[in-house]
């Protein structure tokens, strides 16, 4: 039993840490998020050079063959730097779907392009009515000759504005909420029939509304089998949720450490405010929440993710528990920073906003709590054995 990084993992960790330290100081980051584009292509090239874009991909396609633990390392450091480049949408989410479902041909043509940084992808799945339900798909795809014709609307697609390609989930069969009948299409962002409304998010990332009107997609651009995409979507969104949790844990560490530091230095009534026991205990509780968040992330990362029941349970446990930590640590960080906490100028509010929005991503605390309960409490019934023993 050990939680130490392997040598390779330590190298990866050092590499990402150096990138953030050297290329992502606070002023640089502020300029990036204020720019028209909202990201920096230069950084993306660096990711490619460092090999970061290949972390989760199979070695057969030029990737590093990394696991969840490796993605955790990258995302945790990205969290610490509030790196806004679309790594999660492109590499983890879209990249995961392509790896999972793509044909040999598709994988050979797309994955190396992602790894080299030449293309970026985003996954358009949510719809105005779907909230977090991946099975709730109204966007339709109707076969017309050799092409499918897609119509519909996708909500809050992260990274779409920077992507060359979109993966779109559409209904080829079945009712609006049926798990079967969902198909994935990969299309060029500039295709006729696609309109993107790009906007910044409250936490300074970028997302888009995607309007799909008579978008023609060739059969060749289907990912995986027609009607059968749901399981893969759920799996890859789960993997991406662990990545998002990793980013959150990185952010929580910054929030906890910087708040502790701030309270030590901030003087009021002639002394450091960290001399107040109430503030000390709140900082301790922030640390405890951080440690618990990190622990449950480790639980998820070391779980047997190839077992879909274990994966679902571990992911929802982690997202729900980390969601609780985000709220407590984030709100406490702002409260203890006082006036400095609520202004745009100081770093802490930006970390808080990003953490809060990760809380929403891929389903919020309540959503994953419900999924966890459904997974763990459905099969319980009164045991045959008499319950004859005391509770503690």
């Amino acid at each position, binding site marked *: 039993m050990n939680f130490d990084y392997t040598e390779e993992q330590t190298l990866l960790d050092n590499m990402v840490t150096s990138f953030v330290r050297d290329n992502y100081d606070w002023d640089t980051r502020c300029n990036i998020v204020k720019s*028209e584009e909202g990201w920096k292509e230069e950084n993306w090239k660096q990711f490619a050079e460092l090999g970061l874009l290949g972390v989760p991909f199979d070695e057969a396609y030029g990737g590093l063959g990394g696991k969840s633990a490796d993605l955790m390392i990258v995302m945790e450091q990205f969290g610490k730097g509030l790196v806004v480049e679309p790594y999660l949408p492109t590499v983890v989410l879209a990249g995961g779907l392509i790896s999972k479902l793509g044909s040999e041909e598709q994988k050979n043509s797309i994955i190396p392009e992602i790894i080299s940084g030449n293309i970026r992808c985003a996954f358009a799945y949510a719809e105005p009515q779907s909230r977090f339900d991946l099975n709730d798909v109204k966007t339709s795809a109707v076969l017309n000759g050799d092409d499918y014709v897609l119509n519909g609307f996708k909500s*809050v697609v992260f990274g779409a504005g920077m992507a060359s390609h979109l993966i779109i989930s559409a209904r080829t069969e079945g009712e609006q909420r049926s798990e079967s009948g969902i198909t994935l299409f990969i299309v060029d962002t500039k295709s006729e029939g696609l309109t993107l409304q790009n906007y910044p998010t*409250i936490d300074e990332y970028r997302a888009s509304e995607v309007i799909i009107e008579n978008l023609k997609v060739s059969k060749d651009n289907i990912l995986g089998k027609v009607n059968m995409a749901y399981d893969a979507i759920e799996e890859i969104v789960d993997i991406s949720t662990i990545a998002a949790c990793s980013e959150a844990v990185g952010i929580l560490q910054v929030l906890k450490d910087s708040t502790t530091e701030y309270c030590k230095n*901030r003087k009021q009534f002639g002394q450091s405010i960290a001399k107040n026991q109430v503030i000390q205990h709140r900082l301790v509780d922030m640390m405890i929440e951080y440690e618990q968040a990190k622990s449950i992330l480790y639980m998820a990362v070391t779980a047997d993710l190839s077992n879909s029941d274990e994966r679902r349970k571990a992911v929802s446990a982690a997202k729900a528990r980390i969601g609780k930590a985000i709220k407590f640590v984030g709100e406490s960080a702002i409260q203890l920073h*006082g006036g400095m906490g609520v202004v745009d100028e100081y770093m802490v509010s930006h970390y808080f906003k990003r953490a*809060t929005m990760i809380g929403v991503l891929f389903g919020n605390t309540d959503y994953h709590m419900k999924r966890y309960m459904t997974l763990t409490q459905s099969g319980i019934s009164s045991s045959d054995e008499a319950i004859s023993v005391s509770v503690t």
Partner: protein
Amino acid sequence: MDTAFSNEDLKFQSEIRDFIKTNYPRELRDSINSKRKLGKELSREDLTAWHKILGKHNGWSAPSWPKQYGGAEFTPTQKYIFEQECAKAECQYIMPFGINMVGPVIYTFGNEEQKTQHLPGILSGEVFWCQGYSEPGSGSDLASLKTSAVKEGDHYIVNGQKTWTTMAQYADWIFCLVRTNPDAEKPQQGISFLLIDMKTPGVTVRPIKLMDGSHEVNETWFDNVKVPVENLIGQENMGWTYAKFLLAHERSGIAGVARSKKAIERIKQIASSEMSYGEPLIQDPAFKAKIAAAELELSALEYTELRTLAKDSAGKGPGPESSLLKIKGTDIQQAVTELAMEAVGYYANPHLGTTLSNEYVGPDYATNLSGTYFNFRKASIYGGSNEIQRNIIAKMVLGL
């Protein structure tokens, strides 16, 4: 024990209701709501229009002021009713700086000239005030303030910096705590209460952006600002006394019960439209339990406020128990803004109305809800953080 309104109270209530219906312009409400929804800055006109209307009607712009100064002199019950009705009708709330803060200080401690000069403009809403208390670094330790006022002939020369000056961008006047005696034994001594015309040379206002991108507060700089000695309230070096009076004076409405009630109603409507796991979110046990918990807390708080008002009207004064209203009131406001954000799922993300985006996306009810949640983190910090409020209760109520 009797919480029913008397017949006079009921008559008063319908009078208020009718007045609002007839006089609060629907376009004003819609315009303010729409700006707020989009995270747009409210104009000075938005903030004062309703104040000006009330100012022309029996002193209703100043519910607590004595009649002799042009106020309405409502009873506590009437004030409660007035606030409820205004909140229900979504009237823009009256900026507190003139009516609730400097006004009472002027009519209590000011001289006749000051009363004549300032009270009418405050009542009518024509003159816009702001508050110059906090300074960078002072935070909850207000008495550590450093802005200096040195008397030279018939002027004070004011130098220093105030911060968190809410709406200073619109203000005509600012009331300031300044240090007139730097050698006083205790920091609370040697402070004076000064009224300063914002148009005086040397006054500079710089915006502070809050984390939701909004511009509500400012830094206000004083660089050799000449202030006539006539603008001193009361006696020199006695400013701390007036400041404390001001803090204790106007606590009604601090709990924001009526506004939070309205907010919960809206969340219920939003959650009836939003779907989760194939059912309206309002049917989700976790979500509805949070709504119910907020409602219970609010019901209790409403009665806590009523009990305080009843004590108040019995002449017993609200006292430091009002810290409780502040703590619980802001707790609930924060819980409610969070629930609203939660209700809209992914549509908490878009940050609209910025220079980077002129298009609006998502359901109409969702815009700016996360901005409001983030903005409201200030509520447990300003006006004496909730930690400070607990310190006050510990000392003043529990005698610790």
